[in-house]
C-alpha cells in the first residue's frame, strides 16, 4: 500500500514539475543551473501528533477505559480549543498539595536538587524520528503543570533492544499557575539537540494548580535532516557535562592512586583545623553530583564524601536518565548505612538489571527502612525476591505503577513483616497475594490498593484488614470495583484508627444501606474521605459526617445529585479543620452556592469543576 502511495506521489510530483508550477524541485534545479547556493532550506519541517503513549506514572481514569486516561494524549486533539473537564483528555491522578498533606505521604528526601520539580511523567512515541524544532502541548484545563520536556535517542518502535539510550532535556521550567483554567497551546522554546528523536517525555508538577490539569495532544515539529551548523552548535563536551555523567560517579578512585605513595603529610589548609563533624555538616547540603565531584578534589574530601553517614538517605529519582548498573556499583561501598532509598523512575529500557540491583541491595539492604520504586519497569519477580531477602527491616515499600510485575512476584512481600507503608497503585497484584501480605504484615499503617484491578473480591480484603491490620491509618481503595457495604462495615468496625479513606469511583457502595453513616460514626478520627462519583451520597451522610467527624480535612463528593447546600453548610460549620471540599458535578450545588459558601468559610477550598 505504501509503495503504491509513493508511486502516486512520484507521478504527481513529476507531473507538477513538468507543468512548470511552483515546486521545490523546480527551484532547486534552477538554483543548480544558475550555480548559486539554494535559498530554500533543504529539509522540510514535519509535524506529528503522538502515535502511542508508551509509559506514564499515573492517571485519573480506569485501567480499561478511554475516559480521563493517559492514552488520550496520543493522536489529534479531541477537545482543544474548548476548555473544561472532558473525558477525552489525559488527566493525572493528583493535583495541588492535598496528597502531600496526608499522613500517608512519604517524607521528602534530602538533597533533592533545586531544579527538579517533576511529580508525574508521560512518555510518547511518534512515527518518525526528527531533529526537534518545536514541541507544542495542548492543555485544555488548568494549564501550567509541565516542568520538563525530554527527548530520547532510542526509537521505541524498533525491534532491537535499546543500546546507548540517551535522554536530553529540551526544555525545563518551574511549575506555574495560570490565572484562568482556560485552554492554551503551550510551546516553550526548546534546545536543539544532536540526535533525531521520536520518543518524548513530559514531566509535570501540578502543585500550584487549583484542580486537575488536563492535556489533549502533543505536537512534535522537527526536520528530517540534520539542521545546518548555523542553526545549532556542535555539542562540545565541557567540564560541566563530564561531571554530570556517570563517569564522575564511577571514577572517584582515579586521581588518588598515584598520590598515596608520595605524600604522607596532609596539606589541606584550614580544612585540617575543622572538626570532622563540621565538614560532614557542610557536605550534607550538597546535591549528589556535587558530592561526587567534590570527592575527586582531594584525599580528605574524598574520605568525607565517601563516608556512609552522608548516605543515610539517597534519592536517585532526579537522575533517572543517567543511572545505570555501573553507577549503583560505585555507590555501593558508601551505602552501608542507607535507610531511605528512592529509585523511582530509574532503570527503564535496560539500564538497570537484576545483577546490578541485587548486588546493590545486598550491600545496603540491611539497614534499609524505606524503598521507593515507583514506575521501575526493570523489576521482576527475582528483584522482589532479592528485596524480601536483603531488607528484613523494611517498613515502607512503594511499587506504584510497576505494572509489568507479574502477579506471583507480590507473594514475596509477605516476608517483609515489619512493613508499615505499602503502595501498590496500578499493579497486577491478585487476591491470594494481597491476603497473604495482610496475614503477615500486621503492622501496616498505610495501604494503597488504588486501581488494583486484578483483586477479585474486595470485601474479603476488607474483612482481612479488619482482622489483621488493626493499626491501619490510611487506606486507598480508589476504583476498587466490588467493595460493598458489607466489606466497608467490617472494615470500619475493625480498623478504628483509620484517618484517611479513599473510596472514589467505587460503584457498588450504596448509601441506602447506611454504610456511610456507619462509617462516620465508627471513625471519629477521620481526616480524609473521598466518595468521588458515588452517586448515592445524600444529605443524611453529610449530616452524620458533620456530627461525628470533627477532624475532617479533605472531602470529595463529586457527582452526587442528592446533597443540598443546607447539609454542606452544617458540615462546614461543624468541621473547622476542613480545607478541601470537592462538589464538582453535584447537581444541587451550583456556582452561586459555591461562592456563597466560600464567602462564609474562606479557609475551605471548594472545588467545582465544569465541562464548558
Amino acid at each position, binding site marked *: 500500500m505504501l509503495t503504491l*502511495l509513493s508511486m502516486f*506521489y512520484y507521478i504527481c510530483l513529476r507531473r507538477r514539475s513538468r507543468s512548470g508550477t511552483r515546486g521545490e524541485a523546480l527551484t532547486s534545479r534552477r538554483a543548480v543551473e544558475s550555480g548559486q547556493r539554494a535559498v530554500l532550506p533543504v529539509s522540510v519541517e514535519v509535524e506529528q501528533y503522538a502515535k502511542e503513549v508508551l509509559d506514564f506514572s499515573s492517571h485519573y481514569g*480506569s485501567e480499561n477505559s478511554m475516559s480521563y486516561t493517559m492514552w488520550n494524549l496520543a493522536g489529534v486533539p479531541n477537545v482543544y480549543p474548548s476548555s473544561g473537564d472532558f*473525558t477525552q483528555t489525559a488527566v493525572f491522578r493528583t493535583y495541588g498539595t492535598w496528597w502531600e498533606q496526608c499522613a500517608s505521604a512519604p517524607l521528602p528526601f534530602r538533597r533533592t536538587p533545586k531544579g527538579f520539580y517533576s511529580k508525574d511523567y508521560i512518555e510518547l512515541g511518534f512515527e518518525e524520528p526528527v531533529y526537534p524544532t518545536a514541541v507544542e502541548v495542548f492543555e485544555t484545563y488548568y494549564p501550567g503543570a509541565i516542568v520538563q520536556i525530554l527527548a530520547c535517542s532510542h526509537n521505541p518502535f524498533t525491534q532491537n533492544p535499546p543500546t546507548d539510550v540517551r535522554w536530553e532535556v529540551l526544555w525545563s521550567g518551574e511549575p506555574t499557575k495560570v490565572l484562568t483554567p482556560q485552554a492554551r497551546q503551550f510551546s516553550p522554546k526548546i534546545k536543539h539537540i544532536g540526535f533525531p528523536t521520536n520518543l518524548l517525555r513530559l514531566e509535570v508538577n501540578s502543585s500550584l494548580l487549583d484542580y486537575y490539569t488536563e492535556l489533549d495532544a502533543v505536537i512534535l515539529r522537527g526536520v528530517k535532516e540534520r539542521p545546518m551548523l548555523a542553526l545549532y552548535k556542535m555539542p562540545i563536551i565541557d567540564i560541566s557535562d563530564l561531571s554530570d555523567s556517570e563517569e564522575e560517579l564511577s571514577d572517584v578512585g582515579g586521581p588518588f592512586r598515584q598520590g598515596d605513595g608520595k605524600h604522607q603529610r596532609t596539606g589541606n589548609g584550614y580544612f585540617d583545623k575543622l572538626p570532622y563533624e563540621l565538614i560532614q555538616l557542610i557536605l550534607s547540603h550538597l546535591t549528589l553530583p556535587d558530592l561526587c565531584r567534590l570527592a575527586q578534589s582531594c584525599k580528605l574530601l574524598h574520605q568525607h564524601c565517601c563516608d556512609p553517614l552522608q548516605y543515610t538517605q539517597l534519592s536517585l529519582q532526579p537522575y533517572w536518565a543517567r543511572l545505570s548498573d555501573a553507577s549503583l556499583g560505585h555507590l555501593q561501598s558508601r551505602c552501608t548505612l542507607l535507610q531511605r532509598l528512592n529509585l523511582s523512575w530509574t532503570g527503564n529500557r535496560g539500564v538497570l538489571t537484576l545483577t546490578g540491583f541485587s548486588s546493590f541491595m545486598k550491600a545496603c539492604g540491611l539497614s534499609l527502612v524505606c524503598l521507593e520504586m515507583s514506575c521501575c519497569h526493570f523489576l521482576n519477580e527475582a528483584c522482589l525476591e532479592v528485596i524480601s531477602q536483603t531488607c528484613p527491616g523494611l517498613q515502607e515499600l512503594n511499587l506504584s505503577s510497576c505494572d509489568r510485575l507479574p502477579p506471583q512476584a507480590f507473594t514475596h512481600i509477605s516476608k517483609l513483616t515489619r512493613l508499615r507503608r505499602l503502595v501498590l497503585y496500578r499493579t497486577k497484584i491478585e487476591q491470594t497475594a494481597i491476603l497473604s501480605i495482610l496475614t503477615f504484615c500486621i503492622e501496616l499503617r498505610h495501604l494503597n490498593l488504588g486501581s488494583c484491578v486484578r483483586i477479585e473480591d474486595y470485601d474479603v480484603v476488607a474483612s482481612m484488614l479488619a482482622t489483621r491490620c488493626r493499626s491501619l491509618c490510611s487506606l486507598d481503595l480508589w476504583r476498587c470495583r466490588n467493595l460493598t457495604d458489607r466489606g466497608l462495615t467490617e472494615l470500619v468496625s475493625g480498623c478504628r484508627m483509620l484517618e484517611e479513606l479513599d473510596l472514589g469511583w467505587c460503584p457498588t457502595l450504596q448509601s441506602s444501606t447506611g454504610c456511610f453513616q456507619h462509617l462516620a460514626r465508627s471513625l471519629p478520627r477521620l481526616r480524609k474521605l473521598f466518595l468521588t462519583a458515588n452517586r448515592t451520597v445524600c444529605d443524611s451522610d453529610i449530616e452524620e459526617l458533620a456530627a461525628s467527624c470533627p477532624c475532617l480535612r479533605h472531602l470529595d463528593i463529586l457527582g452526587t*445529585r442528592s446533597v443540598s447546600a443546607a447539609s454542606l453548610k452544617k458540615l462546614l460549620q461543624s468541621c473547622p479543620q476542613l480545607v478541601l471540599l470537592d462538589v*464538582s458535578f453535584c447537581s444541587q450545588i451550583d456556582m452561586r452556592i459555591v461562592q456563597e459558601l466560600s464567602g462564609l468559610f474562606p479557609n475551605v477550598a471548594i472545588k467545582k469543576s465544569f465541562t464548558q
Partner: protein
Amino acid sequence: MLSVLSYGRLVARAVLGGLSQTDGRDYSLITASYGFGKDFRKGILKKGMCYGDDACFIARHKTADVLGVADGVGGWRDYGVDPSQFSATLMKTCERLVKEGRFTPSNPVGILTSGYYELLQNKVPLLGSSTACIVVLDRRSHRLHTCNLGDSGFLVVRGGEVVHRSDEQQHYFNTPFQLSIAPPGAEGVVLSDSPEAADSSSFDVQLGDIILTATDGLFDNMPDYMILQELKKLKVSLQHVSLCLYVLETNSNFNAFFIIASRFRLPTMTASCRLHRALQSKLMILPTTLIICPLLHSLPVTMA
C-alpha cells in the same frame, strides 16, 4: 502520521482527477445521515447527529464501517431528565470507541458494552435510557455483524426484497429493552437491560445491498412494501444524487430521523447539506428514523 496523510491527499486528488480503477477487494459503505425530531415543525433542529430523542453515528476504522442508532426513552421527560442526553452521549461514545479502534468488528455487542461502561466513567452524572442498534461491516470478510437492543432495528434489502431484518425486543407494549442509568434508589423500579441481552447476528452481504437502520418511528409507521417502494427510487450511480421523499402521516408520538444514502463524488459533508436543504423544502411530515447505505466498491483512499 501526517506525512502519510499528505501522501494520501495527493493520491486522492490524482484518483478523482482521472483514474477510474478501484480496488474491488474491500467493500465499504457510502452513507449520509439526516433526520429531525418532533419539533421539526417548529424549526428546531439539534446540531450534529442528534434528532429529537434519537441519536446516531457513522464511523470508520481500518477494516470496518460502523453505524449506530439509539432511541432515547421519552418517559424520562416526566422526571426532569432530558432523554436525548443519554442516547446522544451513548452514540458519541461508541463513535469514539470505533475511531480509536477499541472494538472487534465481529463483536458489535462489545461496542455497546464498552460504550455503556464508558458512560458510567463520566464525571457528569448521566441519567436516562435508550435502545441501541449497531451494525458493523467488516470490509475484508464482507460480513455484516449486527446487534440490536430494543425496538430499533435494521433491514437489509437486496434486489428489492428484505433478506435480513432484526427482531424487536420488548418487555411489554411501548417498553422496549433499553440500556439505562437510573437515579440512586430507583434501580429496582427503572428498567435496565444489560448490553448482553442484545440480539446479535452475522451474515454475508453483497455489492448493491442496501442496509437500513432505523428507530421504531419508521417501522411503526411504514409497512414493508412502502419502505421497499421508496428504496427502489434510490438510484445509485456515479453521476448524480438521488433523493428519497417520504410523506407520512402526522404522528406526534414518534420522533423522526432518517438518512438517505447515495453515491456521490463530492465529500460527504457537502452532499448531506444539499440533501438537507432539498428535503426541508419538499418534506411535510416525517416521523421516522433510518439510515440507508448501499454497499459499493471502495475507493482506494478514504477522505478522512
